[in-house]
């Protein structure tokens, strides 16, 4: 029953000394605000990166047909791979080339993780383009100088093999995406143009790459089977080329450096930024134009497939499944001296990113923790001052029959109130800062209620912890001395 009285008393006390109360709370406010701010920005970053990675297919498994590696080619691979990132949009090496050898993988993803991101987005399709050059550019620059070892059709995987693989692992595989990045070019209308990159895809591509349709439909199996000249375009392209008219069923002309292709638009997908494309303005944005893979194969040198992506079903252990696939594929390529098909995934990269971000969060939280400690000491200091100031009041209370426990409770409650109000203000400030910070960095702010509850509880705990000593001091005051205190 004293609790309520004590709370009212403490609030009255704080009100009568507003400036001091605020300054006392400031330490707690800043501490809690920085914890909330850091955690919420960290959460926003992590979840945004995670969802980006997931939408880019972090759990996807990439299968590559590549040269059986020797260490000498790996180092060369790295060098030229980095060089090519400068001029080719497909800086795909991060993930794709990573498969070329174990050691190469590590170095490369470390060096150019940016390129790796981009790579997955544009789908690693470049290999198929025009035979030797395209393949070489992508899969190990090492081979650029050794065209003799470029994969021939016979080394690559056939559609039948891929279908068989899908059937064999039907329990684990959700879908398989095959794509080939074809030529880049422009789509022109009377008034404007849009940069595009033609990507030949199969039906599974939509599922694997999480493509969201805005209008119309994605490519269907019969588009692929019947080699129809149809295309799925981005909403960005639609707004540039078609304006407000309905694009479905319209023909578009794609101008490349040496040819013009005509496609009928069957669907519009929602363009997603890949996180690293902030610098690209809408004007010269290059978006993907999806056509049936069989259409793009018409102009390709290789009729078979060098790479494809597998999306595992939910709940499948990606790491174990990758190992299983590797075994299956190495059996398939057992007789090939020069080439092998390797399965790899991005899990490890995702993990290291998360770990890094957690470490950063932890470090900043540690600093925030120190500021909370300092704030707590500030509270203790003021509580001690308050006890001294109110010595006479304490004496009076004791003379009127207050037990030591009553006095102790009164001061602990007061300290808790200071810290709790500070904590609440800190949470609000932290949420504000977190939202602003996340916005500034282009992330969506998500604060889990758990963090708020923990901070709130923690600030109360600070109140108890740093209020205890002053309260104990107050409770132990000798009533006679206290009553006489001037």
């Amino acid at each position, binding site marked *: 029953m004293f609790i309520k*009285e004590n709370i009212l008393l403490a609030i009255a006390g704080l009100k009568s000394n507003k400036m001091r109360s605020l300054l006392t709370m400031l330490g707690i406010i800043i501490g809690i605000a920085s914890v909330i701010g850091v955690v919420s920005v960290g959460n926003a970053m992590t979840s945004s990166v995670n969802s980006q990675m997931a939408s880019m297919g972090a759990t996807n498994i990439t299968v590559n047909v590549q040269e059986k590696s020797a260490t000498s080619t790996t180092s060369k691979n790295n060098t030229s791979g980095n060089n090519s990132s400068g001029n080719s949009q497909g800086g795909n090496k991060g993930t794709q080339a990573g498969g070329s050898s174990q050691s190469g993988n590590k170095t490369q993803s470390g060096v150019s993780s940016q390129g790796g991101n981009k790579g997955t987005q544009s789908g690693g399709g470049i290999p198929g383009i025009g035979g030797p050059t395209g393949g070489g550019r992508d899969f190990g620059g090492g081979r650029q100088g050794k065209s003799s070892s470029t994969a021939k059709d016979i080394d690559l995987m056939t559609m039948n093999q891929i279908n068989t693989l899908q059937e064999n692992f039907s329990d684990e595989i959700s879908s398989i995406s095959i794509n080939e990045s074809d030529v880049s070019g422009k789509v022109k209308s009377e008034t404007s143009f849009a940069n595009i990159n033609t990507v030949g895809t199969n039906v599974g591509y939509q599922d694997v790459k999480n493509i969201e349709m805005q209008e119309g439909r994605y490519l269907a199996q019969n588009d692929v089977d019947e080699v129809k000249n149809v295309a799925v375009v981005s909403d960005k392209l639609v707004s540039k080329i078609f304006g407000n008219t309905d694009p479905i069923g319209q023909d578009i002309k794609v101008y490349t450096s040496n040819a013009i292709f005509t496609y009928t638009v069957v669907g519009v997908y929602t363009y997603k930024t890949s996180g690293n494309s902030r610098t690209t303005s809408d004007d010269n944005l290059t978006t993907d134009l999806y056509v049936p893979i069989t259409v793009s194969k018409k102009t390709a040198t290789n009729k078979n497939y060098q790479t494809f992506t597998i999306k595992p079903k939910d709940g499948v252990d990606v790491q174990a499944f990758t190992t299983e696939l590797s075994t299956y594929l190495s059996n398939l390529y057992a007789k090939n001296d020069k080439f092998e098909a390797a399965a790899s995934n991005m899990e490890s990269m995702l993990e290291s990113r998360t770990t890094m971000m957690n470490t950063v969060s932890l470090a900043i939280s540690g600093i925030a923790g120190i500021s909370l400690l300092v704030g707590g000491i500030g509270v203790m200091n003021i509580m001690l001052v308050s006890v001294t100031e109110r010595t006479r009041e304490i004496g*009076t209370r004791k003379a009127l029959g*207050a037990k030591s426990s009553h006095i102790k409770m009164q001061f602990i409650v007061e300290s808790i109130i200071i810290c709790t109000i500070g904590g609440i203000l800190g949470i609000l400030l932290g949420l504000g800062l977190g939202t602003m910070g996340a916005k500034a960095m282009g992330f969506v702010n998500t604060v889990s209620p758990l963090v708020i509850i923990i901070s709130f509880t923690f600030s109360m705990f600070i109140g108890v912890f740093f209020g205890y000593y002053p309260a104990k001091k107050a409770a132990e005051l000798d009533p006679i001395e206290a009553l006489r205190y001037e």
Partner: protein
Amino acid sequence: MSNNIIEMKNIIKSFYIGTPNELNILKGIDITVKEGEFVSIIGTSGSGKSTLMNIIGALDRPTSGKYVLDGTNIDEISDNGLSEVRNKQIGFVFQTYNLIPRSSALKNVELPMLYYGMNKKDRRQRAEELLELVGMKDRMSHQPNELSGGQKQRVAIARALVNDPSIILADEPTGALDSATGRMVMDLFHKIHEEEGKTIVLITHNNELADETQRIITLRDGNIISVADNEKYYRRFREEEKICL
């Protein structure tokens, strides 16, 4: 025996015990106060008056001797026990009022009942009753810094009475007041004594105030040098009776 509120036998209070500068403040005090008495303890400063008051008020324990307050043996109980004794059996009135700052008069009067463990409704009712008695009901929501000295002391007297204590222990209650206000406060004590039948112990160095009480205990150097029934008191009382009649 049963109507003895205070029984003190050979109370000794020493400080710095066992050291060369051991100080004996009270050197064997025997006091008996009967129920309903209005007693004053006088003495110059340094006579041990305050120390005696602290012991009577259960704020301190004697070094030796026996003190029974309304049937409770004070030197046998714990610190928490002393708190309870102060809460239930003693009503303090201080020279400096000692009202809790930033608490209304009502809250101040309610405070001893809060420590007593009374419920809110009863507290409020009883506090209002007593503020009425001391004539402060219309000021009950005022804070101490909005009250005059005399008003503060009246609130303090209401607070002292609120748990219906065995004794009212008043330490120089008029010391900080001008004579007119002091008169009013003393009249209030007489009213409480006569109408409520309260036992009052008044500690003062002022002989004029002591003259208004029934019995005067004089202290010097830690000893009681005289205990005298006060003729003047009875005269005053009779005069008042006449007036009343």
